[in-house]
């Protein structure tokens, strides 16, 4: 593909336009002319012609899918007259319940203070971290520096977390005297049980 002497197969335009359609429907970002040419193993000029054909097939008014030229290149989008349906697809009712994983992760971070992903995975007794990234994305936890000695990133809960859970501050968390008198004891208890769980 890198060789300047590479022979480019001759593509009937129709076939090439199908290739372009396929590439655009699987891409998660707009594709440039060069990217399309490289993937289709064709000349950029040929791609230009194919794109014209694809543009005719996928045009506003005649199709629900529309070919669009944006800054980064070419991509498909929904036609404008379907905006209402698309909006309904993306408008989601507020989520009522958090997953078990999310709730456990939040509880650990809230009660124990800043924790790293390995900390959380160990206490939960799971092999992989699933969900911290999601909680960060939702703004419920945020980064809080690294473990000493350039270790793993630690996370803490955010003001949004407190708002969602109706807490003025973390000191209002339900008391866990039966688990441990203070954070240290609770942490020890959790770690002891976690070891048994994975044993």
């Amino acid at each position, binding site marked *: 593909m890198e060789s300047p002497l590479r022979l480019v197969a001759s593509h009937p335009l129709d076939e090439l336009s199908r290739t372009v359609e396929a590439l655009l429907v699987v891409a998660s970002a*707009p594709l440039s002319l060069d990217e399309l040419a490289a993937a289709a193993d064709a000349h950029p000029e040929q791609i230009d012609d194919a794109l014209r054909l694809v543009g005719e097939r996928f045009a506003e008014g005649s199709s629900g899918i529309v070919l*669009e030229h944006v800054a980064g290149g070419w991509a498909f989008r929904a036609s404008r007259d379907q905006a209402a349906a698309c909006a309904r697809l993306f408008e*989601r009712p*507020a989520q009522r319940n958090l997953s078990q994983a999310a709730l456990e992760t939040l509880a650990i971070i809230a009660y124990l203070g800043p924790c790293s992903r390995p900390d959380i995975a160990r206490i939960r007794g799971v092999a992989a971290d699933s969900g911290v990234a999601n909680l960060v994305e939702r703004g419920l936890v945020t980064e809080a520096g690294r473990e000493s000695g350039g270790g793993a990133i630690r996370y803490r809960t955010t003001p949004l977390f407190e708002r969602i859970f109706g*807490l003025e501050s973390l000191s209002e968390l339900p008391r*866990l005297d039966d688990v*441990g008198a203070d954070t240290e004891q609770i942490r020890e208890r959790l770690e002891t049980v976690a070891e048994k769980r994975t044993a």
Partner: protein
Amino acid sequence: MIVRELELDLDAFEGPFDLLLALVLKEELDLADIDLAGIVVTFLERLAEREELDLEACGEFLVLIAALLELKARALFPDENAELAELDPEEAAEELARRLDEYRRAKEAAAWLRERLATEGDRFFRLGPAPLAPKVETPLAPQDPEQLGIVLRLLATEPPQVSLKHMALNFPPVSQFLERFRAVLKRRSRFDFDTEVRELTRLEQASAFLAVLELRRSGELLLEQAAPFAPIRVIRLQEKSPAEERTSEWNLRSA
């Protein structure tokens, strides 16, 4: 390394490991005749020939050899009220068959998935959101803070005991007993197997018995048992005394 293609050259069997497993399962080969230690040695030799440790092959091999060892041990001690699973022999047999079958099903299902992966490999689709689609943000409804206390308390609760007893089949190394019995036979020309292993766990006894079988195979000793469930006598082979004599001697001493 593909474990099932492991070429074996044993007294009772010559061919790939896979065929051996098939024959054992079809009753065409008696496990009691199979030198399991020989299989382990062959595997270790093949393993040593490679530069990198093939963990996957090790895992697969361990599963298979453990199952065979367990089967063999069960066949050798069918009447023992196996403390390792607290099952009666029939239940144990059923449980074992079920587990072997379960594993075989998993392997078959995995093979199906692999084939599917190959035939569906040309189906490309987009992973993740479309390039020009709106970003979705799902707001979170207000949550009850009590949930946090509940899940943390649950995390601090010791989990119910999962019985994995039958998983924890830590067969003590047979070699340990090879050494031990050789040493005993240096001091004494014969000993009573049951007495010798009385203090050991059932699993250790199983290993010890495999060691005794191994020593018999290599011609270092003879085994004798007057009747089923009678004590097993282990006799140093160098001693040249006919079987009858040994039996009468035993009777005299025990009289």
